[in-house]
């Protein structure tokens, strides 16, 4: 894709705090009208990267461009208020001394225009009844909608969402996520969503970037990254993983789980398999293992088994074996991941 389709283009950006490298030569592209997920563990630098895009942090190397205009270089930083970005914060950051309507209209100039935009957004996000309420009287989901409406009000080129669901619990989380996606798609807004939750990232994002230790380690579609991670860190970010020792010899990786072709030099590697991709067979078939524990987790059971050399975890829907049973395990070679050590 041409760079003219890029709404946000981050090239070789670094940010250092004292001795700590928060972002290390990161590259990132958000395409126009799409939702990009930025997934990483705590301290991986994802929120700092988002703040550099918003202009809330300066950068020490690289460039950031928004809608074709360079907004950050090491010597230059366009002020946040002049970047045409909207941001939704982890704690929503609603102004406690202003009503919902005043919060949403905070960034707008001109009264007539402001009232019209605020009214339209409150209606779209179904919070029009609460327009005169103060933020502390709202539920978590309502607060989130106000924060989104406020960020959308200035018609930003891009919306940045920093852990938008982390302060919401269970059932509300899914509901709010659906609402948010619907609104972003309806308005055709380009958005970057920072999260540490793989499920949130994969459900929301059309494109995904994985961050670890300040670096963007892999980018692609959620399905592609889930199935074909290029490193242990990337594989782990996207969900639970069993890892075993393996060795590559003449383009084929071999471990207790089986064999898979690998374009890697000869030597030790790791082989991974998701707990959902391990299957049980009869005791005399496949890899022999003993069930060490079984835990009920709602829609599936977490079964931990041990072979002579490795311990593995399985997520099994339906009937589960009992602790102490001897079972056989099979693996679809296509589901195996060969990861550099």
């Amino acid at each position, binding site marked *: 894709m041409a760079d003219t389709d890029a709404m946000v283009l981050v090239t070789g950006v670094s940010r250092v705090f004292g001795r700590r490298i928060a972002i290390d030569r990161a590259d990132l592209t958000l395409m126009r009208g799409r939702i990009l997920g930025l997934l990483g563990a705590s301290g991986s630098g994802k929120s700092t990267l988002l703040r550099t895009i918003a202009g809330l942090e300066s950068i020490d190397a690289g460039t950031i461009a928004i809608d074709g205009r360079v907004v950050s270089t090491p010597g230059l930083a366009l002020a946040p208020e002049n970047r045409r970005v909207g941001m939704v914060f982890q704690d929503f950051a609603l102004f406690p001394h202003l009503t919902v309507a005043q919060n949403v209209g905070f*960034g707008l100039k001109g009264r007539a225009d402001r009232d019209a935009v605020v009214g339209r957004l409150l209606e779209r996000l179904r919070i029009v009844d609460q327009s005169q309420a103060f933020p502390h009287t709202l539920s978590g989901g309502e607060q989130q909608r106000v924060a989104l409406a406020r960020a959308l009000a200035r018609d930003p080129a891009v919306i940045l969402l920093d852990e938008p669901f982390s302060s919401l619990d269970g059932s509300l989380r899914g509901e709010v996520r659906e609402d948010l996606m619907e609104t972003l798609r309806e308005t055709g807004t380009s958005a970057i969503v920072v999260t540490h939750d793989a499920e949130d990232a994969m459900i929301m994002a059309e494109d995904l970037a994985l961050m670890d230790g300040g670096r963007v380690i892999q980018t692609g579609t959620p399905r592609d990254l889930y199935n074909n991670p290029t490193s242990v860190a990337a594989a782990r970010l996207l969900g639970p993983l069993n890892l075993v020792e393996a060795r590559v010899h003449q383009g084929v990786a071999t471990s207790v789980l089986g064999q898979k072709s690998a374009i890697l030099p000869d030597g030790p590697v790791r082989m991974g398999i998701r707990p959902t991709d391990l299957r049980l067979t009869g005791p005399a078939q496949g890899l022999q293992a003993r069930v060490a524990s079984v835990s009920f987790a709602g829609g599936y059971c977490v079964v931990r088994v041990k072979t002579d050399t490795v311990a593995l975890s399985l997520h099994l829907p339906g009937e589960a074996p009992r602790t102490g049973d001897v079972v056989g395990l099979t693996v679809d070679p296509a589901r195996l991941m060969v990861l550099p050590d």
Partner: protein
Amino acid sequence: MRGLTVLRLLAFLAAAVAIAPLIGVVAAAFGDGRADIAAADLVRYALTSMALAFLVGLSTAVLGSVSAWLVVMHSFPGRNIFAWALALPLAAPAFAVAYAYADLFDVAGELRTWMRAVPGLDWGPQMRSLPGAAFVLSLAFYPYVYLTVRAALVNQSSQAIEAARSLGCSPTQALVRVALPLLRPALAAGVALAVMETLADYGAVQFLSVQTLTTGVVRSWFVYGSLEAAARLALPLLGAAALLLWIERLSRKGRTDEAARARWRPIQPTPLEGGRGLLALAFCIGLLTLGLFLPAGWLAIKALDISPDWPRLVRAASHSLGLGLGGAIATVILATCLALSAERMPFTARISSLGYATPGAVMAIGLLAPASLLWQNVPGAVSGLGVGLLLLIYAYAARLMAAALEPVEAGLTRVTPSMVSAARTLGRSETGAALAVRLPIASGAMLTAVLVVFIDVVKELPATLILRPFNVDTLAVIADNYARDERLPNAGWPSLMILALTLPAVIWLTRKITASRPGDLNGRH
């Protein structure tokens, strides 16, 4: 973002305002003018100041912590009223308490005459002495210890004590091993504040004929006209101020963190039944009577005997009110400039707090040198009255910046960093975000700061004495004038009028402070 922004520039200016007089003192002390202070005098003043500070520190520690421990950890009749009322002596200027007790126990006074006649006793405490001054200042300043220890007791939550109990401690062991060690920082902070006020006091010790470094500073200027001598006497006070401020700041490190506040649960007070309850009640009533009701009542009885000079009193009251409000507003504006950048400039904020521990007399001496330069070099540019009032307000602001900074900073902590970031991404500059978000949210705290400074300015004496323009007398100044002439009934009127000005503010503040709870956002204003 980095670099010098408008807000940072304002913070630097505010800090410069606070620091300049202190630099002035040091410069004057090392100037080449004559400063005939006998070393023996300096040592005598310093030793008296130390002895007074020690006695007041010790007795305020006992009175403040016992009263706080009674009120927070026990229930007895009147407990809820005493929770805030025990801080009311803060409204009374120490010199007024000194006038009342000196007169009450005067050998020729009504009380001693009555005691000689009826019970046949010819004994009474000698108030015009070091122990007498320590007694008066302890009653005036114990609320500083009471408020800090009370806050620490309330903050510590029942969970720490419950954890100790679940680990095998008896109630007494839990108190000794957990509750008391947790109180140590608060006690140190409260005593440091009381000692700072003791070293800064001029009116009470001067009236009680106790010669301290602060009375020495004022005398050097008024009697000998020697700025250098005054500045040299002020130097040890500056050193003591820095030390006390360091102790007070150090003790904050042990305070309850935000996470602990979220899990805060109130302490269940132990009921004091029968005689023990009455004893607690008697202690609190006794303390409040000695600290406020008795001195104020005695001054009122004496004052009612005479017909006051109302025009003079009204003029002085309007000066006190005007300077109080002007000083408070100027101080809070400067403190707010500092507070808006304090998080990113902690050193600047802390160093500008040095003025708080510096006696007003020292602050005034520090301003005299630059002021005389101004008067000599810009004649007629500003009227003497204008410059004088400006200098006075300057001295108040430099001295009380830290007192205002604390509530304003606390108010600004209600603004999360992400709220400021949100305002920035919504089109506001750094200054715009401060005006549209940070200041409105902290407005309640700014009002608190205005009241705190107002109370202190209305009670202030030494800096006002030194810097006030000719013919601008405040209530504190005319009380001091009358008291010097031994016209106690006349001194009673301005003293009681000061109380009338400060008491409503103190009641409002102490009720607000004692009603707040950990984790509370201090109400929605």
